[in-house]
């Protein structure tokens, strides 16, 4: 598994050091810029997979930085970190050209999962496939059919969307909030274990009575669909 090249643009030295260290432990290459201007120069020059941009930065704020990059046709995926966790701030961040938005404080596992999903290099081609395959599980996105070992499994529309998102990001951790965002298109904190209940339903449909479970719970982080045999 090849590591990603990440650029962390964050003025809080302690937070940045922690992130750089944590990403390196995960096998990624992480650079660090301390202000908006430095970050812009590096992002424009360097070949990064994902930019992690703090919203409030000295010299050039995070949103302006991203919209400037987009104006220069630099399309590197950008994740915005912000202490402003309100509903409107996310909209503003995405409107400026950000690809994802994570309010502070966040769990590193959440950030890691989101960055991995954003990464262009590791996503290559996945979105365009019409059939997703994991081991003997096959999801046809055109006919909305799911089969496991050749046997058709009926799915409700939301179960289909849930599984589609998991399979598009097969081998990567997806968190509960990511599922709520992409399957239901809501960003609030549902507080109870609603997502877990949906997952356990889905799991009973695809994994029940099978020798190798495909839908895994990643403790403290979220879920992942992968070929257990591999």
């Amino acid at each position, binding site marked *: 598994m090849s590591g990603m090249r990440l650029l962390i643009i964050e003025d809080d030295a302690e937070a940045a050091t922690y992130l750089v260290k944590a990403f390196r432990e995960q096998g990624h290459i992480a650079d660090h810029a301390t202000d908006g201007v430095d970050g812009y120069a590096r992002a424009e020059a360097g070949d990064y997979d994902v930019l992690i941009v703090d919203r409030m930065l000295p010299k050039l704020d995070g949103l302006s930085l991203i919209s400037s990059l987009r104006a220069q046709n630099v399309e590197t995926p950008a994740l915005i970190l912000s202490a402003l966790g309100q509903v409107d701030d996310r909209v503003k961040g995405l409107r400026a050209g950000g690809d994802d938005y994570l309010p502070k*404080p966040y769990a590193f596992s959440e950030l890691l999962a989101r960055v991995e999903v954003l990464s262009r290099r590791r996503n290559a081609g996945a979105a365009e496939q019409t059939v997703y395959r994991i081991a003997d599980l096959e999801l046809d996105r055109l006919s909305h059919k799911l089969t496991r070992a050749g046997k058709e499994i009926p799915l409700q529309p939301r179960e289909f969307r849930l599984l589609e998102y998991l399979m598009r990001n097969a081998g990567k951790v997806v968190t509960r909030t990511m599922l709520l965002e992409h399957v239901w298109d809501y960003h609030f904190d*549902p507080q109870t274990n609603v997502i877990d209940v949906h997952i356990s339903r889905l799991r009973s449909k695809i994994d029940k009575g099978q020798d190798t479970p495909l839908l895994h719970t990643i403790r403290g982080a979220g879920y992942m669909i992968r070929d257990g045999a591999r």
Partner: protein
Amino acid sequence: MALGKLFRTTAFKLALVYSLVFAAAAWIVVANVARNVRQVLEDQIAETVDADIRGLVDLYAQGGVRRVMEAVERRVKNPGSDIYLVTTFNGDPIVGNIAALPPAALDQSGLVETPYERPGDKAAVRRAMLRIYTMPGGFRLLVGQDIEEREKLRRVMGRSLTSSLGWLILIGAVGGLFVARRVLMRVDAMSDTSRSIMAGDLSRRLPTDGSGDELDRLAGNLNAMLGRIEALMKGVKEVSDNIAHDLRTPLTRLRNKAEAALSGASAPDEQRSALQEVIAESDELIRIFDALLLIARAESGAGPLMERLDAAAVARDVGELYDVSAEEQGGRLTVAVDDRLFVRANRELLAQALSNLVDNALKHGVAVPDGAPDLALEARREGRRIRLVVSDRGPGVPPEDRARVLERFVRLEQSRSQPGSGLGLSLVAAIARLLGGELKLEDNAPGLRAVLDLPAADDPTQSAMR
């Protein structure tokens, strides 16, 4: 000191200026009338005198000076007669009722006003208006009218007018003073009260007299403002008290777990799980802060962007999100949502409010612990309102507690054992207020009916067609 303040008041200055202006106007009117009356009287005297002279001149033409003197002699015998005098060409009086006259008066022509003396009444100098006519032969005929009475009247009128003006100004000023003082006293009372309010006694209110005048309305409005400020202050104080109190529990748990993880005796596995619990506790704290922040923002009215959206779609989404949770607990969530329920709202906030209500019903809306939830999520239009209703068949909330459970951190005794921060319903109530509606808790007999009552946002294209 108080008088000085009185003189500085606007009311007093206005009263003074008004009484002065009125006095000046009154003076101008009276003076004008007096001048005109005087003119009319003078014209009348001149006419009478001229007619008299013409008559006497006729007599002269008939019988010479003798006839004139006889006529004059006859006339002056009548008491209160006009004034007559016939003199020789060098001014010596021959006959008449004038004892003395300023010598220069005889040489003037036209109507003359002059002092004179009557015979037998030497002390009294009177005023007369007279005309001199020189008859052929140098005899001079003087005919006039006494105007002493008129002068007296004029003086009396002048004096009374002057004193009236004085009274007018005095009464006006005193009246102004009285009014100013009354207003001043009320303003002073208001300002005294506001000083004591500023000093920290927010329960004080400005005095009102119920008269409904400007000052009373002002005091009423200020009181309403004070009421709002007091409620807000009370809210802030309660919240800070509650935060201090309610955050102690999770913070203590957090601290205990961190200590447990540190203690050398525990195995690496235990340390790991203790640290995970530490993270879970801090996540819970963050969640509480987020909810408090959202409530605070909603209550200050600084909400996010609002748009016209279909609440039915949001209600169906939330229903779809939670129905499996109800089934998982062996119960059900019945969703009955009408079509096209447009409101002005923010999709995220509305969904959060509804999911809080459903979440609340799942946690507290079951009849017995570990019982099966029987919940309903309904959405429909009633007149100009959109009602989003989440109902359960659980123990419900007693009527006396319904207002209280909407407050921050309030948790009823029976639900203390359940997880939760006591912020869920407060958040829904705050969001409802932000969206221009309200959250009502009703009896579902048995159970709780939580009604999110929002104003409908009409379709602009539809209303245009109507």
